[in-house]
């Protein structure tokens, strides 16, 4: 089980897989590469999962700002991977629509700490 | 943050760290307790005499456990008197080498411009 945090404070239990029309992009991917690959028409309607490899690597926050500028409003931008509760508020401020938290991280950090 | 690679185990090595709560420098004693490093002379450290013993000593405190009571534990080399052999670790054991706070300038104002 995996949890999905929404900006309005809701938490959704995701049974198994995240929706099938999503694409996973490492947050270390250069923006120009995302522009030429991800922002092509066939991917436009999907959920983009920006995956943080390490919580101390803040590239995902800048990428989010740039992607939100270019993605159509129908596309959902989600943060996933190595995110800690203390970064939830930053993620909302940088434009993420949701955060996908692994079960392991959810429990280790304590469910309360994710509620910002 | 191991400061220096251990070259010589002949006088033994010991484990030092900072206490998580107070931050103060501590060492592991032979009863597996963390005691203040500044009181090392009055205590008995847990001493290892080989690389393997040192690794076992480090593993025995579960350094990766989030509940480990110390931070940044590492092995340091001892000299023949059971004191840290490196100047940095010796400074950790003896505290700052200068007078600080209200004591700083007492008795040193003998020189003037």
């Amino acid at each position, binding site marked *: 089980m995996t949890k999905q945090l929404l900006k309005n404070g809701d938490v959704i239990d995701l049974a198994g897989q995240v929706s099938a029309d999503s694409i996973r992009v490492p947050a270390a991917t250069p923006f120009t590469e995302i522009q030429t690959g991800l922002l092509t028409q066939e991917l436009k309607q999907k959920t983009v999962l920006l995956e943080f490899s390490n919580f101390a690597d803040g590239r995902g926050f800048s990428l989010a700002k740039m992607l939100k500028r270019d993605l159509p409003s129908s596309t959902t931008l989600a943060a996933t991977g190595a995110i800690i509760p203390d970064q939830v508020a*930053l993620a909302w401020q940088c434009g993420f629509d949701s955060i996908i938290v692994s079960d392991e991280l959810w429990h280790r950090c304590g469910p309360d700490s994710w509620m910002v | 943050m191991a400061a220096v690679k251990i070259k010589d185990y002949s006088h033994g090595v010991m484990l030092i760290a900072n206490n998580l709560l107070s931050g103060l420098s501590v060492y592991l004693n032979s009863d597996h307790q963390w005691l203040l490093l500044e009181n090392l002379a009055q205590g008995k450290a847990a001493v290892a005499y080989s690389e393997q013993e040192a690794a076992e000593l480090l593993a025995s405190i579960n350094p990766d456990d989030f509940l480990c009571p110390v931070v940044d534990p590492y092995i340091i080399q001892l000299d023949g008197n059971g004191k840290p052999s490196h100047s940095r670790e010796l400074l950790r054991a003896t505290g700052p080498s200068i007078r600080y706070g209200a004591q700083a300038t007492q008795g*040193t104002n003998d020189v003037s411009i």
Partner: protein
Amino acid sequence: MYQYNEVDQITVDDRCREFRDQVERRIEGTLSEAEFKPLRLMNGLYLQLHAYMLRVAIPYGVLNSIQLNKLADISDKYDRGYGHFTTRQNIQFNWPTLEEVPDLLEELATVQMHAIQTSGNCIRNITSDPLAGVAADEEVDPRPICEWLRQWSTLHPEFRYLPRKFKFAITGSANDRAAIKVHDIGLRLRKGPNGDPLIDLWLGGGQGRTPKIAQLFKQGLTVEQLLPYLEATLRVYNLHGRRDNKYKARIKILLAETGLEALQAQVQEEYEALDKSPFVNSVAELKALYPHFAQPLVDVAQASEIANVIDEKLSGEEVARWYKQNTRDHKLAGFRSVMISLKPAGGIPGDATSAQMRALAAIAKRFSRDELRVTHRQNLILPWVAEKDLYAVWLALREIDLAESNIDLPSDIIACPGMDYCALATARSIPVAQDISKAIRKTELQHDIGKLAINISGCINACAHHHVADIGVLGLDRAGVENYQITLGGRSDENARVGERMGPGVSADELPATIERVVKFYIKERRDDETFSLTYDRIGKTEFKTAVYGVAE
């Protein structure tokens, strides 16, 4: 000076609660040390050799008496009765415990202070000219822009996990007292056409193991352009700065590896693309800050009358020397800035006891419009002293052993905490600074030597700015023995440059005599009032190197 508005206070109070929660989670064991470390660093909390160390922000070095009194109380309650003023115009406490830091931060918040972003890979405390707003030679008062950038950079959601730390320095004078060219970004404010300043942006300066002097990156930015341009610059750095090697992660390396023109083009492209709508009110916000820094109303006629009276009390030898060496010309007639040396004989550079802090707070309140400044040379300033009060101020400072007339002289040494406190240090700085100071005081009349910067760093990270000193000293560890490398001819002013390294390092015992030889050689060779760096340029490295090692004396 700036007073918090409601939003500032809520932000700081929230941050105290957040950190208290983080500390609790660390102690309970739901946060690992690896996760907690960047969080505590972003709140200024380091783990040093003997204990935790808390670095408290003093934005652009400006303090009032209530704040200094609070710092004194904190040093008694949570530390060992003293604090250490740093080259970043901050103050450090050396002995707080983790459990008590949340209480300490709450106390700081009651006087509009905090430790946010004094460490960590984020935008650090912004530094400035310590004489901002009072210097006679100032073109533009940098304080409103400093405060504006403080608000923009504090808790910026995008730039809290940068590749490495990021330091800003700002000056509004042609005589750079803020060392802007050895910062990640240095801003030089000039007078613009319609009353607003124009801003030159210098980028990629820094010290550490790869010292670099900043390059002029963008000239003549308007206040409308500044924040979006900075946002674009930081965004490019966040995405492209190296994360594989922390010694190559500063923007100076990105600049060197990308090239000036290519990096300028990247920033320009992002600047043009980024959404400007969040900045629509920012210039109005800047203008709302100006009244906080308005010049006090002074009766001009009365002030100049006072200024023309020669105060007989200031003619005594000791006080006259203090007046000449420790006071500076002021923007306002009838006033002077008073520099307070934290480098007394035998003292620790930058340290002040709680008793001294309280006395200084009282002096500032009575004689300096309730204001003090911290300088990057680890001294303090009373920026608003009326000439008529100078003698009383001198007496009051003498009372607390802080009337030493050595500002900018060789015994006004910058020293980092070194291996006596710092976990990164490879050698001690404080005792060698004390020894050098003692040697210089004994052998020469330092007033005859004049201005000379000796800076001592206890490791390659160069916190004491040794690269840009007349005489720089770098303490290293050579097989467990402290060894000190000498650098000569550096400058941190508008003509900033990195000093040249002499040969092999010398021992702690040899160091004072070595420095003494260099100083004597300079005195012998200089022409008239020639500065150290000019003499060094004229005579050359080879000759000075001979002086360092004392071969042919």
